[in-house]
């Protein structure tokens, strides 16, 4: 993970804490970084998942596929790219871990909106791989 990833993960953790504790604003500061988050009390359904998706760009119509394992991303040939139309339960790539192929399958039909990873990239648990726009079947 890069430093930016760490920052992002801390923002995510903080956002989760914000929602869990029912707070309106929270800030932390430790040496190099200072993070301040706040939410409008009129958003009763703010959830960790939507906070993550907002940060990544896509809206609630997107299904974000994440990695269950620590490994390296391998695309199938030809590789899916942003804009590809796909059906549900389509294998988009696999994450290779300890010599085992762990397939990444779409859960909904739609269009690939975001490809977060590159061929051969190391990913950890929960790393976003693809966002599928299910509103554009």
């Amino acid at each position, binding site marked *: *993970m890069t430093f930016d990833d760490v920052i992002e993960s801390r923002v995510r953790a903080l956002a989760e804490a914000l929602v869990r504790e029912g707070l309106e604003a929270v800030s932390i500061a430790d040496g190099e970084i200072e993070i301040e988050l706040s939410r409008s009390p009129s958003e009763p359904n703010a959830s960790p998942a939507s906070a993550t998706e907002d940060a990544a760009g896509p809206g609630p119509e997107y299904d974000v596929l994440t990695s269950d394992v620590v490994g390296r991303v391998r695309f199938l040939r030809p590789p899916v790219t942003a804009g590809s139309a796909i059906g549900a339960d389509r294998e988009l790539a696999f994450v290779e871990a300890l010599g085992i192929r762990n397939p990444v399958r779409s859960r909904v039909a739609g269009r690939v909106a975001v490809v977060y990873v590159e061929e051969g990239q190391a990913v950890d648990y929960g790393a976003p791989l693809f966002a599928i726009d299910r509103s554009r079947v």
Partner: protein
Amino acid sequence: MFRKVLVANRGEIALRIIRACRELGVATVAIFSEADRAALHVRLADEAFCVGPGPAARSYLNIPNIISTALITGADALHPGYGFLAENARFAQICADHGITFIGPSPRVIDQMGDKANAKQVMQSAGVPTIPGSGILATLEEAKASAKSIGYPVLLKATAGGGGRGMRAVESERDLGSAFASAQSEAEANFQDGRLYMEKLIVRPRHIEVQILADTRGEVVHLGERDCSIQKPSHQKLIEETPAPNLPADVREELCSVAVRAGQACGYTNAGTLEFLVAAGEIYFMEMNTRIQVEHPVTELIYGVDLVKEQIRIAFGEPLGFGQADLSPHGHAIECRINAEDPERDFAPDAGRVTAVELPGGPGIRVDTHLFAGLSIPPYYDSLLAKIVAVGRTRASALSRMERALAETRIEGVKTTAAICRRILEDARFQEGGVPIDFLDEAFLRGHVLTEA
């Protein structure tokens, strides 16, 4: 030296390992669960990989994801810390199979010492005193004969037992008949197995353990003892110190020489600890811990040896840079474990957000902790928040430093064991030194904990 060490742990011990690696010029990879994204070890390591969700079984015990992290990052060694996978022989073997050096003893030794009956046998054949016991007792007559040779008082135990069921303390032969019958029927009722055996009952023992270091060339040294008699009613340690106060010199000598002999006998490598019960001048081996222990800092402070760095050097194959004659302790050190626990509710773990943290400092104080204000304590793991360690030229000066350090400590947002540690330090019997493992019994807790509020 290793290029990169994967730190397969969390909390203060992960930081401890990262610090040792940094001082050795070795890169580090942290692993973390989703509940630990904001943890300090994630930020202090050179790289960090999430290996699973909060529950330990799916993250810190997730062997495939941990091994995969090591392979992807090119880590050539793995430090397991304590707990989690530290004493898992199968995991140590899997590391070896993937070309990753497990920083600890060999899988064979971990396996051998992990099985209590097996460990006892190995120790007995090395001439290490163990708790005298019998084989399975088929009849009352056999029990009488065994008790006579072991010596009263004895403890009858069910071979299938657990949780104190099928267990009876027997003071004299007069009580043996009825105890044997009731233990047998209780064991039959609870475990469908009425077989009993017998052990000597060690009355009000102290828990004293010996630290050893062993390199891959067969050199074994000890680094003295630690007195860990201040334990919660669950037998988890709360305060540890070294040297053990009021321990006769000949008993200390025997403990240390026996520990070295035991290490040599089992072909031990790396850091290890032999735990003993000590009562009436006699020592009894209990178990061997094949890992670094929580309370290792007290030993480091009086011996001037960095045990975690030594573990890494030994695992790399370096010889110990010192012999027994080079090791001499200076002063006295004591550790208090500050846990997120409520002493008023049987030390039940407390989780939540730590809102304020003020940690002690100044002369003779070392604090090993992963705490910072704003940290959320996840409910999934060990409740240790901080280890406050005090060192002084004498026990009295170490204790007064500890009292001062605990008075400076402020942790808000979760219940902690800081106050109960202060009460213990104020106790006259503790100050005198040499209390047994039942010191922190219900009477003490009733007298101190409940009157506090």
